[in-house]
């Protein structure tokens, strides 16, 4: 029989293809031991997002020995890599072939790994135009809380065999299993990009962004803060040129423009660095049309994602802020900086919490992984 998979040319880079023999086995032994003795494990890659989510306990299970790109063929638009692979290495490999992780994952530190990027489920400025990690995740293999190896999804774009358990891993904060090999869809880097700025109040900015999103304009990122709206256009050269003249505004050139979007993604921009003493950085996710004044004083907000994501500093136990986000149809996360406030994530309804509890039991019956990182008992 003719084995096609063995004949195909899979682009592998020598430097990235690190031998990992035995690493999976070590992970499995560690998990089985924890399961048998009722110990807890804390899954960790580069530790760049240690601060995200609620506090957890347990011996660190370091994923970084399990690294390397397993398969990458630009014509398939798919990359498969091990969870401990540095995110920067994956991005470098893709950009050499004019491709990218379209959800622009934040690194939050030089050590960021691919597994951490999937487990936290965080996306960058392009979120509203292309989707989040869950929209690109095609397959994942895991070790469960009993140390069992399971593989879901695959490397193809369309796959409805069995439940889509792989996508469930995106944003699961390591509470269901240890991620091993992960396949994601990649996209071509758009041939042209432009950044435009114009002065505008928060209310007008939210209105404009929603109106523009209903028109065939190639807007892929937006940010409003302190009376200034900045947008990014990406796509075919001619389309970007036409959109620039339609929308107007002052053009921001590269490298300043690229650095600006990166500073938002990585939260190195001045807004994020000026945390008032003792305050927490709150992330409010709301319907894009939400009036800024419904949440808090507009001037205190940095508004991203066409109006859907709003950042502001407030006390870590500011439940009124969370209630305002919920009332608007969204939710609020105590994202970073302060600790010991109210719950990090907005609580779930009782029936949905019940489903969560049963899922946790299915994947991790003894509660080995990342205990309490998402919710109490999860």
């Amino acid at each position, binding site marked *: 029989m003719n084995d096609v998979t063995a004949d195909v040319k899979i682009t592998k880079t020598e430097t990235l293809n690190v031998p990992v023999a035995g690493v999976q086995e070590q992970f499995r032994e560690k998990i089985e031991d924890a399961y048998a003795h009722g110990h807890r494990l804390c899954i960790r890659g580069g530790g760049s997002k240690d601060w995200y989510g609620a506090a957890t306990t347990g011996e660190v299970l370091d994923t970084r020995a399990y690294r390397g790109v397993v398969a990458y063929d630009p014509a398939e638009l798919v990359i498969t890599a091990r969870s401990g692979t540095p995110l920067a290495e994956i991005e470098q490999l893709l950009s050499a072939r004019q491709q990218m992780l379209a959800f622009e994952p934040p690194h939050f530190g030089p050590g960021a790994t691919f597994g951490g990027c999937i487990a936290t489920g965080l996306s960058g400025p392009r979120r509203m135009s292309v989707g989040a990690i869950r929209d690109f995740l095609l397959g994942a293999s895991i070790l469960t809380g009993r140390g069992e190896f399971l593989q879901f999804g695959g490397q193809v774009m369309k796959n409805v065999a069995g439940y889509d358990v792989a996508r469930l891993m995106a944003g699961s904060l390591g509470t269901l299993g240890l991620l091993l090999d992960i396949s994601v869809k990649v996209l071509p880097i758009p041939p042209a990009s432009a950044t435009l700025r114009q002065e505008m109040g928060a209310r007008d900015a939210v209105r404009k962004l929603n109106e523009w999103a209903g028109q065939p304009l190639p807007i892929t990122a937006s940010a409003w803060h302190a009376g200034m709206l900045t947008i990014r256009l990406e796509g075919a050269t001619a389309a970007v040129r036409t959109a620039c003249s339609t929308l107007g505004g002052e053009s921001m050139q590269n490298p300043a423009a690229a650095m600006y979007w990166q500073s938002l993604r990585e939260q190195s921009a001045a807004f994020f660095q000026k945390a008032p003493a003792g305050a927490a950085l709150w992330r409010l996710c709301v319907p894009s049309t939400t009036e800024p004044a419904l949440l808090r004083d507009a001037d205190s907000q940095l508004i991203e994602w066409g109006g859907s994501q709003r950042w502001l500093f407030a006390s870590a136990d500011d439940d009124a802020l969370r209630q305002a986000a919920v009332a608007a149809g*969204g939710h609020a996360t105590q994202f970073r900086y302060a600790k010991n406030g109210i719950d990090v994530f907005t609580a779930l309804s009782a029936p949905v919490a019940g*489903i969560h509890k049963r899922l946790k039991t299915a994947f991790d019956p003894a509660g080995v992984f990342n205990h309490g990182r998402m919710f109490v008992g999860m």
Partner: protein
Amino acid sequence: MPGCTLLTDKEDVAPYECDGLAAYRQLPLGVVLAESEAHVQAVLRLCAHHGIPVVPRGAGTGLSGGAMPLREGVVLSLARMRKIINVDPYARTATLQPGVRNLAISEAASPFGLYYAPDPSSQIACTIGGNIAENSGGVHCLKYGLTVNNVVRVRAVTMDGEICEFGSHAPDAPGLDLLAVLIGSEGMFAIVTEVTVRLIPKPQVAQVVMASFDDVEVGGAAVAAIIASGIIPAGLEMLDRAAAQAVEEFVHAGYDTSAAAILLCESDGTPEEVAEEIERLTTLLEAQGATRIEISTSEAERLRFWSGRKNAFPAAGRLSPDYYCMDGTVPRRAIGPLLLRIREMEKRYQLRCINVFHAGDGNMHPLILFNGNDRDEWHRAEEFGADILETCVELGGTVTGEHGIGVEKINSMCVQFSDGERDMFFAVKHAFDPQRLLNPDKGIPTRARCAEYGRLHVRGGLLPHPEIPRF
């Protein structure tokens, strides 16, 4: 319950005995036609109390028997819940009851210059609730995504009558992404009562390039070259010679019947974008060895080019009394090798097979031609189909890209997933439906069933324990 209809007479329930996969039939105990969420809740509570299984149903257009009734079960039809609750052009969303037809969403959004992107071929009839159950795709999903990428929120009732909200109008809802796993769960987790979808601006123009190849492998290489060059076409579809000849006789779309393969490649967007992309595509296709290239010059011509592809199934119906449609997906690079393997199988099973496929995402629809009145031919067609699907798994793909497992491909799941993985699927179902009453016995085979089926789980072309010799 006022307004809620219950059908129990044999002649009344007979129309519900099968879905689009007519080869599998079963009369149910009864059929409930729900008209509100309260009806759904009451029916589920009652059935849960009495331990009666429930099979949800939309328009019944599914192709894998997912809505086939159970003898001791109730069919819960959502087809009468067809209210468009709201279309919000400012927020670019539409909120719908589950029985709203797919195409009706785009029709309602059209006055605002918006549409709902996923367009399964049955879109004039299929419902959004059914699309959620199957994670439906369509010819444009390479560029615009599947149902999972275009639905933001679902309200649903679980078997115990609890109302749950999955996802929201805001991005990244807290907790696990239950919406992602609910979509494509084939009605086995919860009954959808309300859906919010994302609407996107209608592209201003669309144009199609039609290219001929004198070799299927060369056509497959051209597809890979297009993707590698950084173009994501709005549609990328292929027909083999047998399929092109069949449709040409039927609809006279102007297809080159001497070609070994026909590639249809659509570009959409602003006039500038489309002009730029069509030029790049034409140059690329020429370089890749296309023997004939035609570009649509009008909307009428674009639709004529597509009419052949869109009529492939009825054209198969003219060639043969019956046809059996397969739905495996393989990595793009394996399209050519799979077609060669199918050609060998035609000889082995003594049946013809014509091939149409979503080349852009490797989703194949081989149509096996047979005569259903001949029991032996149907048996061979089933075997032929299972062989194709298991070859897809061996080539690194999956047994179903968009039609679902249902009752049809349940045995092939034994090949694609290990015992442990199938056990986990049951555990995930248990998390939503602990009583196992919602569309049970579909989608996931038990260990016992797989043992009986007797074919082993294959991964990456390797049987488990490759060190053990097998004869």
